[in-house]
């Protein structure tokens, strides 16, 4: 299903002739100060359809959704819901009107239990406003079972869950309410194939019940596999709406970016085998790893080494232990053949390592600070003398790197928070490139990044490896790893479960390794 070429419209369009739309928008506009986020969007949603909303980063998808659920108010345009004017002023209004949303950003309560998170909107009550914990746990249990998280204890605090499980908890929460319309803003960005598939089953079931679903994703293959219709947003305008069956990937992409996209995604590269070993791990064990043997592998200059694995297989932890973001429990690390023991990220950075983290907002960027300040954050020594900042040099460096990575921005003095997701991700990359690293660790480098920017990032990464950098890429998107990597290691439960050479790349092989452990241990 990852292959867009073969994907067709898997779900037939609703039978019968014209159905009354449940939701209808026309000419919706929204500005944030000087930024035009929406500039005339028209959109209609029919009951029982799954309607994809696609567009580049910053096209206005999330803004549109925020208007629909009452977080922000539109400046112009009309919206009708079930034929009546609809003008929500609070998220509560939207919920009363039967609209449920899974937002792009996490909206969880980390110290509360999974059950409380799931039922947070409407906790079951007893007399005197007391929480009916029994019902609460039952409901949460059912909700989790329904999305396939049967083994997560509902009393456990959400803070103890990994990123994917958190996303699933959010989805479970949105499914709690009886809704007419379910909006999912990039729900699959943090999920791996298996959870995604499960989600699609749920969507199909809802659809059968007549619920209308709005589905936002940067993965067009997903759009083709579950959606009935698609609307493309570009620069805040709706530029096309079509039945899925009547459109193609190329057509969508062309409409999204407003031009033909080079076939960057598919380009293969020459296998590089000549480089010296840049990094060598022997039995490196993250504190969260249950296995004393840890992880061992070599990474060569000029090589792109992919790391695949299921959610929670310990890939993020592996990168963190290399970078000394978390200190490894045991094992050794060699850099250019020399043994190293970094005691903090600073030493790893000095040693030529960069780390693009998986969560750019929490760990990668300083959102309130200027683009330039973010770009130079890890290389302030380069733009300063005797501790004094050279702002001109800083701006120059930021502009230069911005050009190299094709960053779309207004001014390097603007806060990085004003950029779209994909461009924010590029700033994170620029931050490390500014330091001329020899090794780059990348954790989900294209999460939430649109197709256009993704292609650009791929090209960029290839370019880096051709310049001799050693790249270690963790990704949950197998096509991404397959496109980029020279070699793929598959992790399972904090161990290397297998290695796949480029000539043997196939999703099936990789998944086989990924699931190996579970098969052997055979739960259920």
């Amino acid at each position, binding site marked *: 299903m990852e292959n867009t070429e073969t994907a067709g419209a898997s779900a037939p369009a609703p039978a019968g002739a014209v159905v009354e739309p449940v939701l209808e928008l026309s000419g919706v506009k929204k500005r944030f100060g000087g930024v035009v986020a929406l500039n005339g969007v028209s959109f209609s949603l029919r009951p029982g359809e799954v309607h994809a909303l696609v567009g580049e980063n910053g096209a206005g998808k999330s803004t549109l959704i925020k208007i629909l659920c009452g977080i922000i108010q539109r400046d112009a345009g009309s919206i009708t819901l079930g034929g009546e004017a609809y003008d929500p002023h*609070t998220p509560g209004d939207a*919920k009363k009107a039967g609209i449920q949303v899974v937002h792009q950003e996490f909206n969880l309560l980390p110290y509360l239990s999974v059950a409380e998170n799931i039922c*947070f909107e409407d906790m079951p009550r007893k007399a005197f406003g007391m929480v009916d914990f029994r019902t609460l746990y039952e409901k949460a249990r059912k909700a989790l079972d329904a999305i396939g998280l049967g083994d997560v204890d509902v009393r456990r605090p959400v803070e103890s869950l990994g990123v994917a499980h958190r996303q699933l908890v959010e989805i479970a929460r949105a499914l709690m309410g009886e809704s007419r319309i379910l909006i999912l803003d990039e729900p699959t960005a943090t999920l791996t194939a298996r959870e995604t598939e499960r989600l699609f089953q749920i969507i199909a079931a809802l659809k059968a019940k007549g619920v209308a679903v709005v589905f936002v994703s940067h993965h067009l293959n997903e759009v083709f596999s579950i959606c009935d219709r698609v609307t493309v947003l570009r620069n805040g305008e709706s530029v096309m709406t079509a039945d899925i069956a009547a459109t193609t990937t190329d057509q969508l992409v062309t409409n999204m970016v407003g031009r033909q996209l080079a076939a960057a995604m598919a380009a293969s590269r020459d296998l590089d085998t000549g480089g010296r070993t840049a990094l060598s791990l022997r039995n490196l064990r993250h504190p969260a790893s249950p296995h004393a043997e840890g992880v061992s592998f070599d990474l060569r200059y000029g090589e792109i080494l992919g790391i695949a694995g299921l959610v929670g297989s310990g890939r993020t932890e592996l990168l963190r232990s290399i970078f000394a973001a978390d200190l490894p429990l045991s094992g050794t690390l060699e850099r250019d053949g020399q043994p190293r023991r970094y005691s903090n990220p600073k030493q790893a950075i000095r040693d030529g390592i960069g780390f693009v983290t998986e969560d750019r907002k929490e760990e990668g960027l300083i959102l309130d600070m200027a683009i330039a300040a973010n770009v130079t954050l890890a290389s302030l020594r380069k733009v300063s003398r005797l501790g004094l900042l050279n702002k001109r040099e800083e701006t120059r460096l930021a502009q230069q790197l911005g050009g190299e990575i094709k960053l779309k921005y207004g001014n390097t003095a603007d806060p990085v928070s004003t950029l779209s997701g994909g461009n924010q991700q590029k700033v994170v990359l620029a931050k490390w490139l500014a330091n001329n690293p020899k090794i780059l660790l990348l954790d989900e480098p294209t999460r939430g990044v649109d197709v256009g920017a993704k292609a650009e990032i791929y090209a960029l990464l290839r370019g880096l490896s051709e310049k001799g950098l050693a790249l270690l890429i963790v990704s949950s998107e197998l096509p991404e790893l397959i496109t980029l990597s020279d070699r793929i290691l598959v992790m399972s439960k904090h161990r290397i479960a297998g290695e796949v050479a480029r000539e043997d790349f196939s999703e099936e092989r990789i998944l086989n390794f990924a699931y190996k452990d579970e098969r052997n241990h055979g739960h259920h």
Partner: protein
Amino acid sequence: MDTTDLTTAPAGSKTIATTTKTVLREAGIGIALIALIIVFSFTPHFLSSSNVTNILTQVTINLVLSIGMTFVILIGGIDLSVGSVLSFCAVVAGTVMTLPGLDPAVAVFLATISAIVAGIGFGLLNGLISAWWAIPSFIVTLGTLNIARGAALQVTNASTIYSFPAAFNAFGSQTFYGIPLLFLIALVLVAIGWFVLTKTVFGRVLYGIGNNEEAARLAGHNVFFYKVAAFTICGVLVGIGAIIYMARLNIASPIIGIGFELNAIAAVIIGGTSLSGGRGSVVGTLLGACIIGVLANGLILLGLSDFMRQMITGFVIILAVILDKYRERLTKA
């Protein structure tokens, strides 16, 4: 095989750990309290029943204020005005209680009501201003701290109010098997606070707001209402605290309560509630208030100089929180 097995093993073991952790959260502070008691028990008189009565009496007012402060801190706020507002509530109640011609019972009843109403008034003010304009409550309550103190002075023209009904004065020193009645009232308030925070929807939403305000708002909760409510609850407790103060000391004056806010905040934080909100409990606050009370009492009994006492108090406050950190690490490992 199902998609759910991914974290089976860790999840199972983690659950137990989680429960233990929750229990230990309070237990850790309890251990610090017990350690302190053991140290002081070598001091003569410390464990005598009359001294236990003393300690409990001395803990009472701080405890009552700390319960309210817990609500405010849980939603990520802070209330610096509690000491001044206590004073304002007391002089209002004192004025009512000494109105000529009132039947004592009626006077006490009306005074109690008016103290609570005054507390609610300032609680509302704090909550409304900080929630409406999204201003840090630190600065809002620094403002109302001054307003309440000035108002208390203005109302009384700086004089002390006394001569309350005899029954009311007697009530303040009453004990029940050596436990001061006022402390029992405070314990009931702890129980109510615990119940509200852990068992009611209202309480869970409060925690939720402290965890992630935006998420709570997106879930359709009226964050504004809850914030105002937390400050108002704090105001109610300040009002009750004022009546307890009057019952204990038989005066009401515009200069009482100076610095009470820091004591209350210290009790809450030592009790393990996070200053950034979302985590903590009233039971922890109870233990925190007891640590402060035991410390003050024990150091006087030890016969240390006032200056040494102040220094040691500082050390122990820090030490209690450091110990709590080690306990936290232990339970994590």
